[in-house]
C-alpha cells in the first residue's frame, strides 16, 4: 500500500470542455455490465480502478469531507470549471458568465438557463444562493472555508448571483466557482441536519445519476436529460470498491477496468507490457513533496544550512529510486513543471545555480564559508553543534520512506546527518502541523496556478506558534514583504501582474529557501484505449485525470466515448 487514499488526496482543478462533437456510433461492447440503456446516445460501460481501501458507505453528501469525492463531478456540478493542469483555463458550467467589480470585492455570476435537476425540477439562481447560504449556516459543510472570505451571497435579478467578499479575493474564484458543488434547494431545504445527511440518492445537475450502490460497487448511469446536448456518451460507469492496491492493479492489468488511478510499482513491466498497444499512462505533476525545515530551530534558521541541503539533494534521483521514477524531481522555486512551465522564471533560477540543481561541492563550500568544519565522523559542526537532525516521515507511505533514505545518504555525503523517524499517520500529521519536528517530509496542496501552493507555504496567517496547529505553513515562515506580495495577487485580475508577483515569490523561495521541494506529486492515471477514446493526454490536458480529483472526474467522464 504505497499510497493510501489519504496520500492521494489533493484538491483539484478544471478544464476546457470542448464538448467534443463526436457521435457515439453505438458499437458499445461493454466488457461487463448489463445495465439498461437510458439515453439514446450513451452506450457501453466503463470500469474504474481506484483503491480506496474500504467498502462503499453509499453516502453521497457532497459537503461531507469523506463522501464528496463520490458525487461531486458526475452528479453534482460547479459554477465554472477550472482546469489546473491547463494554465487554469476556465470553462463556463452552471454559470455562463461572471464579472469582478467593486475593486475585486464583488463577483457576479450569470446562471445558465435550461438546466434541470435529475428529478426533473428546474435549476435556477435560487439554488446557487441557497447552496452558499447553507454553507454559511452550517460551517461544518464549508470544506473550502468559502465563508472565511465571503460577506454575503445574494440573488441579483432573475438569473444573477452576487458574491460579496470581505476583501479583494480574486484567487477565491477557484474555490467558489470550481470547488463548491451546487445542490437543489427543493431537496436540501427539507433536510433537517445537512451535516449528518447521508444523501443516499443524490439529485444533481450532472451527466450521471447514481443507479445502484452496494458496499462493493457504485454504479452511475447516464442522465438522459443532461443539459449538455449529446453528452454523456458512456452509458454505465462502475466504480468498484477495492480494499487493496494489488486487487485494483490486477483488474487494471487484466483489462477488466479501463480507467486507473493507481500507484503501480514498475509500471512499464507490470502494466504497459501486458498490452502495449492499448495500455497507457500519464503522470501529470500537480504539486511538490518537500523537505520542510523547522525555521524555529536555531541551526536550521541559518540560511546557509538550508542552502547546503538544497544543493546537496539530487532531486531526480530521489524520484527515480524512491518513487520508481514515476515522480520527477522538483525545483527550488516550487513551481511545478512542466504543468506550470509558463510561470517558471528560468532566468531567475539560473542566478541560483539553476534553482539549486544538485551540486554537492557547492553545498560543502557554503557550509565551510559559514564557519562549519567537518568533524572526525565526517559531519559538519560549528561551536560544538553538529549538523545532525531527525526527519519525521509518514511510515504509511512506503515510497516516502525510501525517498527519505535516499536523501539521508545524499546529505551524509555533504556532511549533514539526518535520521529518519517514521511515524504513524496520525502522530505524523499532528507533529507536522504542531511544528514538533526538526525536518519533515511532507507535501503541500496545489491549485490552478503556482500561487495557491506558494501561498500555503509562505503566508504568515497559515502558520502558528510551535505547539499549535498550523494550517499549511508548517515551517513557520513569516515575512511582511512576502505577505504583501501574496496580498497583491488576490487584488488583481491581470494575468501579467500575477505573473510578476509569482516571479517575486519564486525569488523568495530561491533566496530564502524556506522549504526545499524534492519531488513532484503526480496524478496517478492509467487508461485503456482498446474500446474507449477521449482520454486526457499530455497534449490534450482538458482535466486532471486522477479519478479522485473533484469535479474533474465528472469532466473526464463527459469526454469519454466508445470507439
Amino acid at each position, binding site marked *: 500500500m504505497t499510497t493510501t487514499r489519504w496520500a492521494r488526496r489533493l484538491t483539484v482543478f478544471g478544464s476546457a470542455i470542448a464538448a467534443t462533437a463526436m457521435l457515439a456510433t453505438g458499437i458499445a461492447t461493454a466488457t461487463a455490465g448489463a445495465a439498461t440503456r437510458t439515453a439514446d446516445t450513451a452506450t457501453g460501460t466503463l470500469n474504474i480502478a481506484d483503491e480506496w481501501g474500504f467498502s462503499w458507505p453509499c453516502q453521497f453528501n457532497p459537503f461531507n469531507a469523506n463522501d464528496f469525492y463520490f458525487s461531486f463531478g458526475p452528479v453534482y456540478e460547479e459554477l465554472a470549471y477550472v482546469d489546473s493542469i491547463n494554465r487554469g483555463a476556465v470553462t463556463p458550467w452552471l454559470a455562463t458568465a461572471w464579472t469582478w467589480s467593486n475593486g475585486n470585492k464583488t463577483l457576479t455570476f450569470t446562471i445558465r438557463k435550461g438546466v434541470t435537476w435529475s428529478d426533473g425540477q428546474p435549476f435556477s439562481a435560487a439554488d446557487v444562493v441557497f447552496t452558499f447560504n447553507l454553507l454559511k449556516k452550517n*460551517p461544518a459543510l464549508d470544506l473550502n472555508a468559502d465563508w472565511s472570505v465571503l460577506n454575503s451571497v445574494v440573488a441579483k435579478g432573475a438569473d444573477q448571483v452576487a458574491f460579496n467578499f470581505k476583501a479583494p479575493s480574486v484567487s477565491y474564484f477557484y474555490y467558489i466557482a470550481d470547488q463548491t458543488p451546487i445542490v437543489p434547494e427543493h431537496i436540501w431545504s427539507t433536510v433537517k441536519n445537512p451535516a449528518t445527511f447521508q444523501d443516499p440518492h443524490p439529485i444533481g445537475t450532472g451527466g450521471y445519476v447514481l443507479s445502484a450502490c452496494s458496499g462493493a*460497487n457504485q454504479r452511475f448511469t447516464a442522465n438522459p436529460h443532461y443539459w449538455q446536448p449529446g453528452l454523456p456518451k458512456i452509458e454505465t460507469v462502475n466504480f*468498484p*470498491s477495492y480494499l*487493496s492496491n494489488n486487487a485494483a492493479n*490486477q483488474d487494471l492489468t487484466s483489462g477488466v477496468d479501463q480507467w486507473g488511478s493507481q500507484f503501480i510499482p514498475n509500471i512499464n513491466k507490470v502494466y504497459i507490457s501486458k498490452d502495449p498497444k492499448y495500455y497507457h499512462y500519464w503522470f501529470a505533476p500537480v504539486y511538490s513533496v518537500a523537505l520542510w525545515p523547522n525555521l524555529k530551530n536555531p541551526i536550521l534558521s541559518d540560511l546557509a544550512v538550508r542552502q547546503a541541503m538544497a544543493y546537496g539533494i539530487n532531486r531526480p534521483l530521489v524520484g527515480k529510486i524512491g518513487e520508481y521514477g514515476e515522480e520527477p524531481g522538483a525545483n527550488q522555486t516550487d513551481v511545478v513543471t512542466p504543468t506550470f512551465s509558463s510561470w517558471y522564471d528560468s532566468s531567475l533560477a539560473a542566478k541560483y545555480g539553476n534553482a539549486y540543481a544538485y551540486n554537492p561541492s557547492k553545498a560543502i563550500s557554503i557550509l565551510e564559508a559559514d564557519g562549519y568544519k567537518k568533524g572526525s565522523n565526517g559531519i559538519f559542526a560549528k561551536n560544538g553543534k553538529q549538523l545532525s537532525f531527525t526527519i519525521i516521515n509518514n511510515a504509511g507511505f512506503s515510497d516516502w520512506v525510501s525517498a527519505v533514505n535516499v536523501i539521508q545518504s545524499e546529505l551524509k555525503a555533504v556532511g549533514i546527518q539526518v535520521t529518519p523517524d517514521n511515524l504513524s*499517520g496520525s502522530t505524523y500529521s499532528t507533529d507536522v502541523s504542531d511544528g514538533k519536528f526538526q525536518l519533515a517530509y511532507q507535501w503541500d*496542496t496545489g491549485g490552478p496556478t503556482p500561487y495557491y501552493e506558494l501561498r500555503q507555504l509562505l503566508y504568515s496567517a497559515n502558520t502558528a506558534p510551535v505547539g499549535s496547529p498550523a494550517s499549511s505553513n508548517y515551517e513557520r515562515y513569516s515575512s511582511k514583504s512576502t505577505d504583501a506580495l501574496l496580498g497583491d495577487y488576490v487584488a488583481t485580475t491581470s494575468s501579467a501582474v500575477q505573473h510578476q508577483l509569482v516571479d517575486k515569490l519564486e525569488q523568495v523561495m530561491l533566496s530564502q529557501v524556506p522549504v526545499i521541494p524534492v519531488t513532484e506529486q503526480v496524478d496517478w492515471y492509467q487508461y485503456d484505449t482498446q474500446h474507449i477514446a477521449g482520454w486526457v493526454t499530455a497534449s490534450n490536458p482538458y482535466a486532471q485525470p486522477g479519478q479522485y480529483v473533484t469535479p474533474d472526474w465528472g469532466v473526464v467522464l463527459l469526454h469519454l466515448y466508445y470507439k
Partner: protein
Amino acid sequence: MRFVVRRLGFFAVTVWAAISLNFMIPRLMPGNPAQVLVAEHPHLNPQALHSLLALLGGTTHQSLPSQYATYWEHVATFNFGISLTTSFGKSVDAMVYQALPWTLGLVGITTLLAFILGTFIGLISAWRRGTWLDSALPPIFVVTSAFPYFWMALLSIYIFSVTLGWFPSEHPYNIFTDSPNLNWHYVGDVLDHAVLPAFTILITAIGGWILTMRNNVITVLSDDYVRMARAKGLKPWRIMWHYAGKNAILPNLTGFAMSLGFIVSGAILVEYVFDYPGVGSLLLQSVNDLDYPLMQALFLLITMAVLLSVLAADVLTAVLDPRTREQS
C-alpha cells in the same frame, strides 16, 4: 453445578475487564480522530469540526468518567454510534452488520471444514500408521500450515487466477454484473468467488488439527481399553471411531470451541488480499483511520465472541470428560 457457577462468575469478571480495557486502550493511543479529519481535509475549519464531532456524538470534550458511563450505556443497548473517519457519518452497527455475514460465511465455514477434515485425516493417518497415507498427508499439510496466510493467498492467486484463470481473484461476487439478491446465479457467483480465499485458509489451518488429532489417537491406541476392545474382537472401524476417536478428540474439540471465537475477527490478511469486505478488512481500516466508535464495536465483538467460546469450551469439556469436573 458449583463448577458452572464458578465459571460464570469468572466469565462476568473477564467481560467487565475486557469491556473496560476496550474503552481505555483507544484513548491511550496517540492522536485523535479530529486530527485525522483535519489532516485529511486541511481546509476544514477546526471549530466547525468540533461542532460536527459533538453533533455526531464524538466524545471530544466530555470528561473520562462520563464518557465511560455513556460507553456502558451504549454497550448495553448495542449502540456504537457513528463512524467518525472511515465512513464519516455512517452507523457503526450497520457497517458491522454489513461485514459480518461475509466473514462468518467465509471464515466460519472454512474453520469448520478445517476442523472436520483435519480431525478425520489425523484419525485415519494414526490408525493406518506407517502407510503411504500417514507418511504423505500429515507432512504435506504441516508444511502448508507453516506458510503465512498472505503468501499462500498470493501464490494461489498467481496460479489459479492469473495463470490458469480458473477462479476470480477478488471481491465477494462479480460486482460488475451481479448484485446481492437471492437467486441461484448470485449464490453460485458468491461460491465461485469464495473458492480461493477458502482454499487458502483451509490449507493453512488444517495442519494443526491433523497433527494434534494424530498424536492423540496414537497415545490412546496404546491404552488398555483399546487393547481390550481388540481382544473382544470388535470390528476395527468400531474401535477407531468409538474407542480411539471419541477419546482422542477431546483436546481438539476444546481447541475448536476456542477457534470459533476467532472467526468473527476474520482473517485480516486473507480478506485484504482477496478484497473481501469482511470484519478483518473493516478492523484494519478502522485502526488505520483511528475510528474509535468502529474500533470499539469491533474489538468488543471479537472479545465477546472469544470469551463466549472459551466458556463454551469449558462447559463442553466438563460435560464430555468427567475427570475435569472434579478437583484432583
